């Protein structure tokens, strides 16, 4: 292995693992960063990295274009509150910027209470480790906010796992935990991998290196089954693709269970030993034979039998679940059914099966290259952000218990996600009920923009009215331009030290060092900024940290691996064993079994039952579709899905980077060839896409790969090259697919949204055109919001607390 830092001629070459910014999930790809005179001259893949082996995706390959982009903001800035929305920013010092934030916060805390300050985190970037700490430990507020309706990214899958298995996030096995990878003794390749609502090559992968799937197909003949409304490229290389109707996945998964039980394609011995409620599950699935699922899903019945047989007969088999599990009000049930499918084969945590992590919340740590199990965890109350906040008097227990918005209505969400409930939080912002919110921070989050928030126009109106707002980011964006008073410039992944653990450490394949290679402008890391403001507000706690490394050692890596050691090793593999449930590596008491109430994989979920939800999976049709809304759906005859990724963008990011933007200059709507004919739309036409919530424009791509009756719209599009001031806000409202979808259409537990099953209409229009103003874009806003509630009331008749609602 080469040194983490070496000299070659006049270049210093750093080995480091990437996280963020720019946006990415913690995959930790290996970089070699060439630096000359303090400036990055080249970024290439690190051939010595055991997972990526020199490969990189376009975003890291274009990293120099990002970090040295002329529009990047590299000094702190301030703006007078009355100038919000106008480009009247002024450069200021770090000290002044921190003072402004700390003073505003102190005044609000004194006058209204700390809970009236909230901190938004976005998706993927490492700041979503820190936004809860910003809220709890810097401001003493329980209200950190992830602004996607129904917390519908990763959270539902994490919760499914926690409720039913108790371990860390399940991921397909590509020998990712071992330094000798595919040569590892005892490892075998999955015979079949199911990609369910996930395209692993392009999707933002949480921690998985997607192209490993291709390696295994080429080297070991691994077969694929895809379940997706789209025939994506990987689908064309798969054995079976089930192109189902959007949002009908739960019916499909139940039908697989039906087939596998009927044909005895399950591991009955394993089921008897390790699961709870199999018979009840099978009985439930009798209501969903393939003939019925075929009708609901719009898939040939015979193909469903074939797929379930191929999966059930494979030894071993593995299942990758994607965002489609989350972005569906019926998704909690889908997750339940998919966990059943991962486990009843007996291949959970088996070589070539679906791997399981040892813990959550960073509790899963390695020591001297070997895993430490749950029973060995250091009882250190410093582990939890909440405990620290309480211990140092930064937040009171009462504040945590009573002021976190929305968790009274949705306790299941509150039990796993240590944030407010997003949809309820938006309502609270608008109605000032249960109390008025006064201040917001945005750490790598852009809720007015185009990435994660439904009805961004509502977030826009609510957030720009607050007393004081600040943001930590790299580029100007619609949220900051319209709402903020202070801008803190954030250092990119190669401009700060830190750690990256895949899957946020819940099922880490390795721990990687992010090694600082250069300084750009005055940028600082998220942690450094948090420390600076923290010291002003709560010096008792924060003064213990001088440097990023102090904080990393304390709160990120704790005691097991000081940052300096990690830095030199660059990558430390987790080397976790298989079958952890057999050897007592999952349960806190060190006994064999799973850390659930019954000690088994709960196919019949006692946790769901406790929350008042059906303990077994059931199918519910999409909230916005022909079945639920027969009259309204006549005006909106197509179903829209969104969220399929372009690998050269991270959600709303990278639109300024020419090398990346030129690969997809405009947002595209994929339309089935026959649908395009029927609607009079040709390739390259501009199309107006309308839902009951609004209308936007995207460019037509006509393709037979879309299922007939289904369109896909790209997400994340805005136009940083356009006028940034209000109301245009960089064309934020023109092509923003989130304007077509509502908040507050969640499943019973509070998870799920409609991003992947929304009814729409399409028509040909001329040009990108569209309105520059959210109010005149056909978007339903106050006072005409009534119509919106008419639609939502069909779904959830009363805005009543969950327990009351469920009694009906």
């Amino acid at each position, binding site marked *: 292995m080469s040194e983490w830092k070496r000299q070659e001629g006049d270049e210093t070459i750093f080995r480091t693992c990437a996280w963020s910014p720019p946006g990415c999930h913690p995959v930790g790809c290996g970089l070699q960063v060439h630096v000359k005179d303090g400036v990055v001259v*080249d*970024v*290439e*893949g690190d*051939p010595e990295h055991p997972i990526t*082996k*020199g*490969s*990189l*995706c*376009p975003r890291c*390959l*274009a990293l*120099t274009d990002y970090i040295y982009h002329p529009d990047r903001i590299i000094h702190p800035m301030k703006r007078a509150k009355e100038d919000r929305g106008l480009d009247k920013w002024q450069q200021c010092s770090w000290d002044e910027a921190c003072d402004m934030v700390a003073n505003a916060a102190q005044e609000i805390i004194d006058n209204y209470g700390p809970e009236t300050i909230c901190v938004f985190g976005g998706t993927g970037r490492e700041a979503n480790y820190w936004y809860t700490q910003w809220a709890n430990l810097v401001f003493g507020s329980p209200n950190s906010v992830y602004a996607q309706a129904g917390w519908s990214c990763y959270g539902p899958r994490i919760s499914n796992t926690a409720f039913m298995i108790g371990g860390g996030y399940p991921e397909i096995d590509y020998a990712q935990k071992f330094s000798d990878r595919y040569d590892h003794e005892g490892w075998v390749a999955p015979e079949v991998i199911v990609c369910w609502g996930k395209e692993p*090559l*392009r999707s933002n992968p949480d921690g998985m290196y*997607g*192209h490993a799937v*291709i*390696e295994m*197909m*080429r080297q070991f003949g691994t077969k694929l089954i895809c379940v997706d409304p789209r*025939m994506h*490229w*990987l*689908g*064309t*290389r798969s054995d079976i693709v089930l192109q189902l109707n959007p949002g009908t996945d739960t019916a499909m998964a139940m039908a697989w269970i039906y087939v596998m039980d009927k044909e005895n394609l399950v591991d009955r011995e394993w089921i008897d030993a390790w699961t709870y409620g199999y018979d009840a599950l099978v009985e439930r699935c009798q209501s969903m034979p393939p003939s019925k699922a075929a009708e609901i899903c719009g898939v040939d019945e015979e193909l469903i039998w074939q797929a379930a047989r191929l999966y059930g007969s494979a030894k071993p088999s593995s299942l990758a679940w994607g965002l489609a599990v989350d972005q569906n009000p019926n998704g909690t049930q889908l997750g339940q059914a998919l966990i059943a499918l991962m486990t009843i084969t007996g291949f959970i945590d088996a070589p070539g099966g679906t791997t399981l992590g040892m813990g959550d919340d960073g509790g899963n740590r390695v020591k001297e290259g070997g895993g430490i199990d749950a029973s060995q965890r250091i009882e250190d109350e410093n582990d939890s952000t909440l405990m620290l906040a309480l211990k140092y008097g930064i937040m009171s227990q009462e504040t945590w218990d009573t002021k976190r918005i929305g968790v009274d209505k949705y306790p299941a969400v509150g039990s796993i996600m240590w944030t407010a409930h997003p949809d309820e939080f938006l309502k609270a912002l608008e109605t000032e009920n249960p109390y008025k919110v006064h201040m917001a921070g945005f750490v790598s989050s852009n809720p007015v923009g185009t990435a994660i928030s439904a009805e961004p126009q509502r977030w826009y109106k609510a957030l720009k009215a607050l007393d004081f707002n600040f943001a930590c980011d790299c580029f100007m964006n619609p949220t900051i331009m319209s709402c903020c008073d202070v801008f803190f410039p954030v250092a990119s992944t190669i401009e700060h030290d830190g750690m990256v653990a895949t899957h946020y450490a819940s099922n880490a394949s390795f721990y990687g060092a992010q090694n600082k290679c250069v300084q750009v402008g005055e940028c600082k890391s998220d942690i450094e900024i948090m420390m600076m403001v923290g010291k002003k507000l709560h010096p008792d706690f924060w003064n213990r940290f001088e440097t990023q490394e102090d904080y990393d050692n304390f709160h990120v890596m704790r005691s097991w691996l000081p940052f300096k050691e990690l830095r030199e090793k660059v990558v430390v593999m987790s080397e976790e064993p298989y079958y952890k449930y057999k050897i007592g590596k999952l349960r806190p008491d060190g006994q064999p079994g799973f850390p659930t109430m019954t000690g088994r994989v709960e196919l019949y979920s006692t946790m769901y039952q406790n929350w008042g939800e059906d303990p077994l999976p059931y199918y519910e049709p999409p909230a916005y579709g022909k079945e639920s809304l027969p009259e309204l759906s006549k005006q909106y005859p197509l179903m829209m899905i969104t969220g399929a990724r372009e*690998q*050269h963008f991270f959600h709303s990011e990278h639109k300024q980077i*020419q*090398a990346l933007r*030129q*690969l997809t200059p405009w947002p595209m709507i994929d339309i089935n060839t026959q649908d395009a004919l029927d609607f009079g739309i040709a390739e390259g036409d501009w199309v107006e896409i309308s839902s009951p919530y609004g209308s936007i424009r995207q460019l037509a791509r006509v*393709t*037979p*790969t879309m299922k007939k009756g289904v369109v896909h719209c790209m997400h994340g599009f805005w136009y940083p090259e356009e006028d940034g001031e209000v109301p245009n806000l960089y064309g934020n409202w023109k092509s923003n697919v989130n304007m077509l979808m509502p908040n507050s259409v969640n499943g019973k537990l509070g998870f799920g949204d409609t991003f992947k099953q929304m009814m729409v209409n399409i028509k040909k229009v001329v040009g990108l055109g569209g309105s520059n103003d959210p109010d005149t874009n056909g978007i339903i806003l106050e006072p005409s919001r009534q119509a919106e509630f008419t639609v939502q009331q069909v779904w959830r008749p009363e805005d009543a607390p969950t327990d009351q609602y469920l009694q009906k």
Partner: protein
Amino acid sequence: MSHGAIYIDFEFCSGCHSCEIACRKHLRIANDKDGIKVLEDRPYQQENGAWHWDYIAYPTELCDLCEDRVAEGKLPSCVQACQAKVLEFGTIEECAEKLKKKPKKAAIFVP
């Protein structure tokens, strides 16, 4: 020594564009030029129901086969960056051997 060449197993080229960007950085050329270019043959369904949808990356006349990198014992930039690991570098003869081993949806390019 025989002339260098690039082998591609385009059955599994995912069209990710990594090779393009890595090459541009190596050759230090502008974004409107390519040392290697990813082409797409767009999807359609064949009579038997099977799908056709291919990407292929081919080196242009700007490609110098990464002479300087190869001299230092490194892989060409595009080969190293390729996410699917479907690009390989070798002499024409070596690449022909690879082609013999996988005589399906594979090609050799000599820029």
